[in-house]
């Protein structure tokens, strides 16, 4: 399939745990432990999961900000791990990232013009020096900021505006893929919608593909074409947005969706709420077999012994990928109009 632009194959990232005066490695935190997925041109793949599930590490692996312990990332069919330094430099133009915290991801001593124009300094052949300022102003205009504010500093902008600056920097080199790591989590509700709408507008105009990493399931549903659900370093479910939200087959996805409050008081007490007991186990010592078995109400002996594979399983309508031995659709979110 030629329309696949980015592909992760069995990606793993283990961080060593070092203890004692000799700093000997006594174990590993398995932040990402065998994740495979594909991203198609111009689509949005949402990655959801709770804190510590490895979704941000996955984003950093795709950017090659972290070297994977194992596994491969293919961009346009090319293995990024095998790319030479100069090839990598070219590849980086095509994959950019927008971070969560607009307060710490912008250098306070640089003007907005310098921040958004910095990619052109590094990739100096993209635009000749004389045209850069004009291009930066175009970018500011594109993300809804006043181009005349090019000489201002980040502290002169609000959180939502700073996130627009981060997005302008992200799209400066005309990337094909933009990785958005919790881009709206730090923003107020009324401003969050502005940034979500901006991301959608940019996707339509520039044909970008997004990997949209977030913990807010409502925002992810709104923006994504396909959605992957992560739990303890693994993808447990992956499918089209309506497959995952309306016919989830993995118990964890079902519990996660059922826990999201819906802003409609008439549904109070009518929703099928699955309340999980206990906390997420430590990724340094994940449970055997299926990692969710310690909190799963459907767990059997096989779940402790054998790890379920992420593969197509029937969901009542069609089929999509799920990693559960007892995958079975259960409607927890009733669609309302």
């Amino acid at each position: 399939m030629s329309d696949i632009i980015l592909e992760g194959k069995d990606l793993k990232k283990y961080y060593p745990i070092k203890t004692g005066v000799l700093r000997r490695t006594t174990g590993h935190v398995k932040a990402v432990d065998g994740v495979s997925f594909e991203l198609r041109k111009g689509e949005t793949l949402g990655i959801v999961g709770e804190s510590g599930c490895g979704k941000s590490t996955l984003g950093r692996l795709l950017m090659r900000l972290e070297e994977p312990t194992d596994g491969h990332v293919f961009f346009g069919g090319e293995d990024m791990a095998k790319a030479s330094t100069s090839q990598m430099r070219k590849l980086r133009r095509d994959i950019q990232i927008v971070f969560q915290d607009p307060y710490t991801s912008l250098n306070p001593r640089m003007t907005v013009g310098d921040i958004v124009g910095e990619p052109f300094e590094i990739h100096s052949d993209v635009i000749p020096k004389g045209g850069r300022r004009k291009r930066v102003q175009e970018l500011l205009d594109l993300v809804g900021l006043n181009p005349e504010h090019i000489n201002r500093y980040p502290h002169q902008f609000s959180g939502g505006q700073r996130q627009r600056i981060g997005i302008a920097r992200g799209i400066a080199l005309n990337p094909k893929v933009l990785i958005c790591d919790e881009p709206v989590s730090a923003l107020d509700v009324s401003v969050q919608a502005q940034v979500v709408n901006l991301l959608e507008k940019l996707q339509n105009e520039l044909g970008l593909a997004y990997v949209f990493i977030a913990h807010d399931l409502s925002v992810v549903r709104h923006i994504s074409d396909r959605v992957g659900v992560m739990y303890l370093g693994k993808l447990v479910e992956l499918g089209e947005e309506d497959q995952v939200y309306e016919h989830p087959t993995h118990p964890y996805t079902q519990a996660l969706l059922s826990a999201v409050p819906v802003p409609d008081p008439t549904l109070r007490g009518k929703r099928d709420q699955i309340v999980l007991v206990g906390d997420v186990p430590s990724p340094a010592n994940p449970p055997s077999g299926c990692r969710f078995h310690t909190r799963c109400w459907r767990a059997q002996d096989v779940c402790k012994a054998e790890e379920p594979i992420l593969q197509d399983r029937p969901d009542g309508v069609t089929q999509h990928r799920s990693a559960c031995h007892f995958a079975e659709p259960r409607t927890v979110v009733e669609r309302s109009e």
Partner: protein
Amino acid sequence: MNHEQATPTAAYQPVNGRLLEVEDLHVEFHTRDGVARAINGVSFTLDAGETLAILGESGSGKSVTAQAIMGILDMPPAKIPAGAIRYCGQDLLTMPEEQRRKTRGPEISMIFQDALSSLNPVFPVGWQIAEMFRMHRGMNKSDAKEQALRLMQRVQIPAAKERINSYPHQFSGGMRQRIMIAMAIALDPAVLIADEPTTALDVTVQAQIMNLLHDLQEERQMGLILITHDLGVVADVADRIAVMYAGRLVEKADILPIYAHPAHPYTKGLLDSIPRLDQKGQTLRAIAGLPPNLLRIPEGCAFNPRCYLAQDVCHRDLPSLREVAPGRWSACHFAEEVLDV
């Protein structure tokens, strides 16, 4: 576990079930750059067994309202130039500090967003919960610890007996929030203020904590003030809502009508701008612009620069919070028009 209802002590008796009455409260902060008017005339009431949600974005003054009720504002820089906060008819703002200290804790208590920084890192959690009983009830150490254990079991901390001597950092975020709830309800308060209690938590843990708060409120008939920005959480638990914007209440109503037919453009804007889990392909109508700087709140209605309905009168006259329909209060010159659509 004794489930006696949290009736105020002899010193306090609610009048017709009314626990708390906040009237025309003003709070300002004196900063180097000028006076930030964080709260500009807020009035509401709270009855026993009722959940009032105070909804607003950052800077709307919702947390400052809670801190003013608890009497934990730093003064200076904060100043309360006008207003009254009456608990069972007695004004907390004019009451002597000694009496107020005896009210805070046994009568009104509060839980915060960030449990880790609200708990003392150098004492075991059991000791911190037991402190409530030692200080306020004069219990001896072993009785107090016994009570602490019962509370830890009540807030469903697994293996509470083994964990009573653990320190805050040894617990997960959700468990720490349970410990803070245990401390807050230790003395059977009549009013509990929860300031963004689940904002720092994951959704599955949020559901656990909200269910726990709901059960505790039912069994003790507490008045609960839930301060949050999350319209979803509010829809699940609140009886009434007060929406705040730039230090004022812009809308006040029972839960059901406000979601179906908001009476203020800001509330309507909020409801239109959040994506819903149970909807597909909806258009998010974002509210343009930004919340105002509290040092320079716009003339007239503070929402006028962002409002699609704004007319000359909105730039000139401050709309008062008025009853626009039975039980519906809105501070908008054009509330009737907003209600009609």
